[in-house]
């Protein structure tokens, strides 16, 4: 792997899919209109060794330092942002590695290496494939401040099952990975576009993902908190309102990932709603 550049999310280049990759470019575009966790994109190339040579590593440490300092105290989330990723079907589904609550420059570099490495093997395979799809060796990694999420989940501006014109929202405690990946049974809501809650459904919420010493850990939600709704109605309406505004800005129905940290509501990601959920 070779590192070529570092681009902040609020810089124009970050919005360019050819530079930052699909995931990071989308997040960068959203960052200009919405509250998105601060971050930057590390661009590079998959050719060469899987691991950075020592000299390269030292150089990267120096380069990363000011960017990491800007993100403040606490860990970061390190995510793959492939450059040939399209909005719909995923060609390299298994390679999208996400590492959460990574703390310290060395750990961040290790994480960047790991994310690059996860992309490498499948792509090398694809070179040998006969399907002829255009594959680039350029790659990008999205690094953002990792929230201590109190509440997180997903919201759709259209019912993904029935297609009805309403907001469907899933929320649970802690970081949103469990809700997104489907390992947690979240609370579920349905709202009208006028932000009226028409249904509340209590989910099991057995576990939640929380920052641990390094990385994150899945722990059990205390029983009393499983038995009640994780979100207040006010929070639910705020999330629905956010989803509607994203739809307005994008011009199409969206599926967003959100997280509350204290009173602040963050937008983590947005995707167009397709007939089949995009796997990521």
């Amino acid at each position, binding site marked *: 792997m070779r590192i070529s550049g570092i681009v902040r999310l609020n810089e124009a280049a970050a919005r360019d899919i050819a530079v930052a990759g699909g995931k990071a470019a989308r997040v960068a575009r959203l960052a200009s209109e919405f509250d998105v966790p601060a971050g930057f994109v590390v661009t590079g190339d998959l050719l060469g060794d899987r691991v950075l040579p020592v000299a390269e590593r030292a150089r990267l440490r120096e380069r990363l330092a000011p960017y990491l300092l800007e993100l403040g105290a606490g860990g970061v989330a390190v995510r793959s942002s492939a450059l040939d990723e399209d909005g719909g079907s995923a060609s390299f589904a298994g390679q999208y590695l996400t590492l959460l609550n990574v703390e310290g420059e060395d750990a961040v570099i290790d994480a960047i290496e790991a994310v690059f490495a996860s992309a490498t093997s499948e792509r090398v395979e694809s070179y040998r494939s006969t399907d002829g799809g255009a594959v680039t060796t350029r790659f990008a990694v999205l690094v953002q401040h990792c929230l*201590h999420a109190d*509440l997180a989940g997903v919201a759709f501006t259209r019912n993904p099952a029935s297609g009805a014109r309403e907001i469907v929202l899933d929320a649970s*405690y*802690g970081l949103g990975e469990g809700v997104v990946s489907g390992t947690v049974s979240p609370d579920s809501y349905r709202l009208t576009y006028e932000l009226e809650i028409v249904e509340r459904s209590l989910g099991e919420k057995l576990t*939640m993902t*929380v*920052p641990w010493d390094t990385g994150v850990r899945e*722990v059990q*939600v*205390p029983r009393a908190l499983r038995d009640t709704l994780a979100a207040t109605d006010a929070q639910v309406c705020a999330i629905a309102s956010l989803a509607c505004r994203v739809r307005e800005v994008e011009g199409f129905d969206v599926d967003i990932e959100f997280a509350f940290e204290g009173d602040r509501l963050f937008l983590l990601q947005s995707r167009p709603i397709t007939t089949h959920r995009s796997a990521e």
Partner: protein
Amino acid sequence: MTTHGDEHGDDTPEGLSWRLDADHFPRPVPWMLSDYMRLACDAGFNATARTFGAGVRLASRRIAGYHYATTYHAPVTDAEAKAALRMDRWALPLKETWDEEWLPEVQRALAYWSAFDLENASEERLLEHLARTIELSKRIWTVHFLLVWTMDTTISLYHEAFVGLFGSDPELGEADLLRGESNRLLDSEQALWNLSRIARESTPLRSLLASGLHDEALCLLGDRTRLDADPVLARFAAEWGRFLDEFGRRSSYFDHLTAPSWTEDPWPVLTLVGQLCGADVRKKQEPELVFEQREQAQARLGRYLARFPVRVRKYFLQLLDAARTATALHETHNYWIDQRCVHEVRRVVLAIGRCLVERGSLERVEDTFELGLTELSQLLGEPRSASTDEGWRSTIEQRKLETAGMENPTPPNVVEDGDADAEPSGDVEPSDGFEDDALFGVAASAGIVEGIVRVVHGIEEVRDLTGAEVLVTTTTAPAWSLFFSAIAAFVTETGGRLSHCAIVAREHGIPCVVAVPNATRLLRDGDRVEVDGTTGAITLVARASG
């Protein structure tokens, strides 16, 4: 459910299995104790069960002089289930509920009893007072079980939440976080220790106690001339009076109704003071150290909690608070309800007994304890005749035989309804419960220590403590904890992690293992053992010689 219709007058279903309550009453008990337990304690348990919509009931009875109990299933109606209060909702407000509802209610009852003039009451007034006492007892024991169920639920919820959030590594300090709360048992233990320090300074008192000359010691403490001349003795006498007044309204073990209280017969307290006198150093962990460990454990957890969802953090900290309260109340409620309130019932019964002896219905005041409380009302209230008096006396004599006649044999642990004769079986051959020179029980207080076994069946048997003793007893009575500052470890045949001695042993930092079957028969005085309170193992290092 068919009415059982025996002299117990209860309506428990048939076909039950009754288990000997060896945890509390391994010896035979006078009739009234079983009667009181049934009337007040069982009733309190069952009222609480209905409040929480739990389909379980408690029943107890005296079989051949021993106290047996059982639980059985009771259907919960839809209405009851709907109306049922949720036990887990009581956990967080536990301290508030105790401070503002339950303790005041108990103290009001104690004030009522204390205000009643037993000495000068007429038979009629005593009869009314007895009826009121029975009603109050039922209510007090309902409070007792509301509290106990809530405490147990709270600690259970805390444990579940802790392990679910942080895991079960003992280094995390789950138990440490609960330590450092004061409770009435620790208070009494502290007071006793203080008494022993004063006694040490008094040569005449110390030597009387060392020789077991308790009557002489009591004479000395009542001798005005001696007290005026000896300031140390006077100081002891004053503290002694205060101790008995605050902590002496109880008997030594679990029977605070029919057994003499320390205020009536202070010999056990003199024994305890005498034995603690010989201890140079108190083993208890300094409160500062306990607190420090607790703060450290909390700081470690705090690092993780800080990054948890805010609602989880808040809830866990509230639950931790409640669990600390529950740990303290575990001992404190025993002082207020099991000891103080039952002591008041004893006072009423003794006053009635004196009345009955005076008019010639009974021969001895203690005979009242072979009657049930309802029977006592009958005897006191009904029109007297020589034949009714005779009838009661012969019932009493019969029951006394049962209470006294079964001293040696081992009663069966379980008696099935329908067993023709519930005769206690003969002496059971203690099975060799050793596995590779080790006995196993429930780990109740962490730590490993090596010491010398001292098997004891009564506090008067505990003497000449050197600090290396591993006390081995049958039950977990709170009274044993009064020695914890002077011994190395504690082992009992019954009990569980939440037993009185377990909590106090943890406060003292001494290893404790409970529920070791037949420990008092498998271990012998003088055996050298290693007690591991973390794993629950007791390993025989060397058998006593001879």
